[in-house]
Every structure is written in structure tokens, then in C-alpha cells.
């Protein structure tokens, strides 16, 4: 069967060039980067080289780069580090975040409220999932004196693709003496990242989202950020993230990020064109369909929809049976479809919130793939709706 992979926002295949870069660091150069001997030096050199590469791609200093196990860990450290620092220094901690954050931020924020007594402020979003700068200003009013405040808002939303003006948010945060973190897990290869230029204090990345390895990621952390690590142990990463370095993962992260950044403009232009064709095709061919997220300012390869009276998981099953791998951004595998919290937040009614679909394009995506989806998707949506209507009309009661 044909196989069309349109779930690049979930994960991407490892780039063969990245694999080649990683290969020597599994068995050949296997040394512990902290070791005194030459095997250790080789690993350390590779890691420091990777750190410099990552810093160049992100517009920060090598010293700002902390290697982690992925996006979730980076988000955890980004929020917990300042919260713990505030706690130890007996300063009030305020966390300002939005209602459409990835769970790695949202769940961590709730836990920090419950465990460390962080004061949690949630800023509303508009119908596209974006925070209005004035609402952010309002949320930053009356911060406690002598406190530490951290704003965390997602750069590009994984479920609905909306890109947020994080540079503007960072400036507003700084005006109020707050720090700014962004989960930029969806960004590399699609959106420009420049921590200096954008004024970001903390930024999270996950390597497998940009054709790098799973189990690796980055927290970029400026020196000015008050931080007490939530991952303790020996003094790796300058005490900011303990644990023996994942040398192949780190080397792979740098190689993948470099490729992603170098090819970004060209890839974004190509994917935007395909994505636009996909969006227009879906909206014109399928009744009761809505685009979710911002129609224009969205991830280049990200198309997301809500369909009335459709259950995402059922639709995804039919697409998979037609050789198309997609996602809803929130569907579950256990047949107990819950409304998408994000679609609810955006104001979609109950007949829409369980019918999300996300088609995320990537390097392998071709115009033929888009044509095939535009062929299969209207049919699949119609079938799902027709079957339910048939049973309702023929069954008793």
C-alpha cells in the first residue's frame, strides 16, 4: 500500500546525514566526556563542538546551551529551575502562561503551583490560539515585590499550528521585570530562531522534531536566568542538567539543527505552498469543515482542521487504511475520544471538538501526496458521517 506520512509534527525520520554523524559515537568514540583519558577527551570535544553549532543556530552563546533528553525535559527544567531558585531564596514566584501550551508546560506549571506554591496566571488566547499583547501586559501587573516572574508561551502550537510573536511577548515580559521562556519544539527548520534578536531568556527544543534522534533535546538558558537545577547529580552542563552526556544524541542534535537551519527558508517556502493547496482543497471539498489556528501566520507545513460530527480517531483509522498517516494532535488510541481542550479553548462547540485533524508536512512530502490526501480525505469524512447517520435512522428508538 502507498504510504503517505503527514505526521511530522509528532516526529520525523532521522536524516541519514545525522545518523552518519552520530554513528562513531556509539561504539568507537564511546568515552565518558567527564573522563580524564583520551577517550573522554574525544567525547568532550564532540560535545563542545555540538554546543557551538547549536549556539550559532540559535543565536546564543555556547555556554547558554544545555543538552537534555528532549522537549519535555527542557520545558520541565525551564520552569522548575527558576521556581526552585525563587523558593530557596525565599522569593515569591509567579508563572504566567497560556491555555494552549503543550502538556509539558501546562502540567509542570500546575504542579509547581501545587508543590512549590507558585502563583499561576493564565492569559487568554483569541480564536487562533494567540495571546493578545495587552492581555499579557494585564497579566504582568502587580507582580509581587522582590519576586521572580516567568512567562512561558509556545512559539508555534503543535495542535493548531499558530505562530506567536514571542519576541514581542519577551519585550513585554522584560518591561515588567519578568523572564521569558518559549517552547519552540515545532520551530526548527520552519521558523527563524534568534535568541539574541528575539530577546528570549529560555527556549526548549526536541531533536526528533527536526530529523534528529529521539531522546535528545536542548534547553537554551541565558546566564542571567536565576536557575536551580531540577535534575541534580554530578556537575554536568555546569550544574544545570546532571547526567552522563548522550554523546551520539548531542552530536546528532547539532547535525540535525544545522541542516534544519540551513534549509529553512527554502523548505518553508516549499511547504507553505503545499500546505496552502491542502487547506484550500480540504475546505472546498468538505462541508462543515473549519481550519483551526491562524490561516496565514502558521507553521509552514502545518494544516489543521475541525470537522463537525466526526470523531478524530475513527477518521484517522480510515485515513490509515488508505495509507495516510495523520494525527489530531490529541486523539487517543483507546476509543474513548475526549474533546480537544485546545479546540474547546478556541470556542469550538461540542460537535466539533472531537473532530480535529492535523496534517503536518515535511521533507518527504510531495505534491502527489497532497493530491492523494485531497482524494481520500473527503471520502473518509463523508463515510464516517454517513455510517453514523445510517445507523441513527434505521435503529429503533
Amino acid at each position: 500500500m502507498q504510504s503517505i506520512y503527514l505526521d511530522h509534527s509528532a516526529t520525523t525520520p532521522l536524516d541519514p546525514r545525522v545518523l552518519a554523524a552520530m554513528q562513531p559515537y556509539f561504539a568507537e568514540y564511546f568515552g565518558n566526556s567527564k573522563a580524564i583519558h583520551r577517550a573522554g577527551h574525544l567525547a568532550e570535544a564532540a560535545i563542545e563542538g555540538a554546543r557551538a553549532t547549536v549556539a550559532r543556530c540559535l543565536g546564543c552563546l555556547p555556554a547558554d546551551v544545555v543538552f537534555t533528553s528532549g522537549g519535555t525535559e527542557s520545558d520541565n527544567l525551564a520552569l522548575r529551575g527558576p521556581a526552585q531558585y525563587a523558593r530557596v531564596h525565599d522569593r515569591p514566584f509567579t508563572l504566567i502562561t497560556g491555555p494552549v501550551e503543550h502538556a509539558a508546560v501546562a502540567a509542570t506549571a500546575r504542579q509547581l503551583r501545587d508543590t512549590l506554591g507558585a502563583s499561576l496566571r493564565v492569559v487568554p488566547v483569541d480564536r487562533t490560539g494567540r495571546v493578545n499583547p495587552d492581555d499579557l501586559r494585564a497579566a504582568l501587573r502587580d507582580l509581587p515585590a522582590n519576586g521572580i516572574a516567568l512567562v512561558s508561551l509556545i512559539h508555534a502550537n503543535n495542535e493548531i499550528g499558530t505562530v506567536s510573536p514571542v519576541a514581542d511577548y519577551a519585550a513585554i515580559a522584560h518591561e515588567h521585570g519578568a523572564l521569558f521562556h518559549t517552547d519552540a519544539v515545532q520551530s526548527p527548520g520552519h521558523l527563524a530562531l534568534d535568541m539574541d534578536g528575539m530577546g528570549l531568556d529560555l527556549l526548549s527544543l526536541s531533536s526528533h522534531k527536526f530529523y534528529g534522534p529521539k531522546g535528545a533535546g536542548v534547553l537554551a538558558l541565558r546566564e542571567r536566568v536565576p536557575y536551580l537545577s531540577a535534575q541534580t547529580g554530578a556537575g554536568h552542563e555546569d550544574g544545570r542538567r546532571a547526567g552522563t552526556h548522550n554523546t551520539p544524541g548531542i552530536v546528532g542534535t547539532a547535525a540535525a539543527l544545522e541542516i534544519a537551519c540551513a534549509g529553512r527558508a527554502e523548505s518553508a517556502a516549499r511547504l507553505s505552498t503545499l500546505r496552502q493547496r491542502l487547506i484550500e482543497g480540504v475546505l472546498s471539498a468538505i462541508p462543515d469543515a473549519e481550519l483551526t489556528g491562524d490561516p496565514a501566520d502558521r507553521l509552514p507545513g502545518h494544516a489543521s482542521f475541525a470537522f463537525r460530527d466526526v470523531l478524530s480517531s475513527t477518521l484517522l483509522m480510515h485515513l490509515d487504511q488508505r495509507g495516510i498517516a495523520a494525527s489530531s494532535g490529541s486523539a487517543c488510541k483507546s476509543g474513548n475520544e475526549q474533546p480537544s481542550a485546545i479546540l474547546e479553548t478556541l470556542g469550538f462547540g461540542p460537535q466539533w471538538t472531537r473532530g480535529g485533524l492535523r496534517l503536518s508536512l515535511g521533507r518527504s512530502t510531495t505534491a502527489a501526496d497532497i493530491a492523494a490526501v485531497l482524494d481520500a480525505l473527503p471520502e473518509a469524512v463523508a463515510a464516517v458521517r454517513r455510517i453514523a447517520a445510517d445507523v441513527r435512522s434505521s435503529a429503533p428508538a
Partner: protein
Amino acid sequence: MSSRPRVVVAMSGGVDSSVAAALLVEQGYDVVGMMMRLWSEDCGEGGANRCCTPDQMADARRIAAQLGIPFYVIDTQEIFRRTIVQFFIDRYAAAETPNPCLQCNRHIRFEWLLGHALASGADFLATGHYARVERAQDGRAHLLKGRDAAKDQSYALSMITQDRLRHALFPVGGYTKAEVRALAVARGLPVAAKHDSQDLCFLADGDYRRFLRQHAPGAARPGPILTRDGQQLGTHTGLLDYTIGQRKGLGISYSAPLYVLATDPARNALIVGTAGELGSRSLSAGHVNWIAGEPPAERFAADLKIRYKARPAPGTVTVLPDGGVQVDFAEPQRDITPGQGVVFYVGEECLGGGIIARSQ
């Protein structure tokens, strides 16, 4: 696209559907596993209900992985609650004793799930039922009893229409339960004697009376216990607490043992009488389904089952002008119950069935 016929197998994690899936794989079909998540009480994550637990889902998923077939869980909760659970409640509220499995096989398995199977490119829907389908030269599908008489489930499939049965496969129908277990063992499939699937899968605890008191309080209103000639002997606790033919638990003393003869929904009355009054020789039934699409004759002799576990009784079926049937039994039947299915057999073949309206 594969040229092999594609079949969706409805998997439950149990031995019958697992063996069904394994046999289809061995027979060279392009097999896809699906499991319906049905609505039931107490069925959230961690809920206590037995028919929908994540355990069964995990079992089915594991078996599908073992067989190397794709597996999907399809959320059927809303449509099942609306069409089957609500039907069950409504019929009890109307003082009938419905059999939701008949409706479920017709509308959920062989309409909803079959619809999804066909829409995903399958030619067939297979289940682990003990029944057989025989395809005649003229293309018509015939429903036969399962080879294991003790496990035969053709009764529950009797309301399926011809255009659906054409797409049905029952891979274990030609085996006995013991043979199916042996097939499972030979293939390394789990045969753990978990409960067979229960009739009222949507109940948390199997107690349908408790469920109905909650959802159809009208059916639980106390009312008079009357003899046929209108003499009140006592008060019943709600019609749903009694079954026709029941002797014990009436809570009244009388010169002779008393049996439940019928219910009278209009008066919310329970009609009782002595053993001599019990039983009828005929019944009428509506909502008749002929699996062939039409009856074999206006009047024909058949073996008749008036509930899932009843022994078939000989009699005659007469088709009425309104499309219903009158069934006349050779011997009086004690427990003809409105709302249950009456299913017609000639030899091994199930010709269809109807829903009992009343005994006569």
C-alpha cells in the same frame, strides 16, 4: 493495494475472536483487527465494567501484534448508548423484556462496524460467533447454526439482513468450543478462561434491575398483582422485577402455587395464575426479518426459539398480511415474553426472526 480479500475482524481479546483472526490470517486474507468501544456504566479509565476494560483492549492489541495485523479501537459509545442502551430502557419502560443483543448485532455490529469495515476497503466483517454462513450458487447467504450445538449463537444473529450477511464471516462457527480452545493453544493464543461475553455488556455489575430503577423509574412502580379475572392478590414491586413463568418470589399465599402469566402495562398490573393457566400455544410477532429477504412460504413448519437459551420447539409459522407472523406451537410454551425474539429454524438453517408482541 493488495489483491487478497480484506476482512475486518471484530476483536474482543477473547479466545473466539482471537482464533477467528488467526484462522483468517492463515487462510490468506488481508486481515485488519477492530474493537468497538461500547458505552457502558462505570467505564472510564479504571472503571469496573468487565466488557470494556483496558485489559481486554490490551489483550486484543497484543493478539493483533502477535498475528501481525493492524488494530484499531473504534469509539462506538455514543451510537451504542443512543440506539441500544436507550432501546433497552425504553422497551422495559413499555413493560417488555427486550433482547438488546439482537439489536446490537443488527445495528452496531452489522451496520455500524460493517459500515466502517466496507468504508475502509474491506470485503468482509468477521466475528467470533458460533454460527455459519453458507453462500449459495445464486449468491444468497444462508445463516446456519454453529456446529457446537451448546454454543450456537445464530439466535443473536437472526435479525441481520441479507445484504449484510453477504459480508459476514464466522470463522469459528464450524468448530466446537473445545476445538477452538485447542486451536488457540496450538497457536500460542491466550485461552485464559475469562468470562464469556455477557449478555448485557453495558451494565457495571450485571444487575439490570438496579440499572432500570435508575434509568426507567416508571418500570419500577409498584402495582397490583391480579388473577386473570381481576381479583387483587397483592402488590408487586415493579414489573421489571418479574419474568413470565416465574413462580418464586411473588410473596403471596394462595391455595395453589402461583406463576407469573403476563403483565398488563396499561394497569401496571402483574397477572398471575396457577400452573394450569400457564402457557400458550401461539404468539404473534412483529419487526420480522427474513434472512433470505422473504419467507419460504406463507405458512411453514419450523423449530422455534423464543429466547437465546430456549430449547427449539416445533410449530408452524404463518405470515400475516401486515408483515408480522403468527406462530403456533405443537405444545404450549410457558415463557413467551413480549420483547424477546422468536427465531425460526428449519433443520440447521436460521430463516430469521421477529420480536414477540404477545402470546395468545
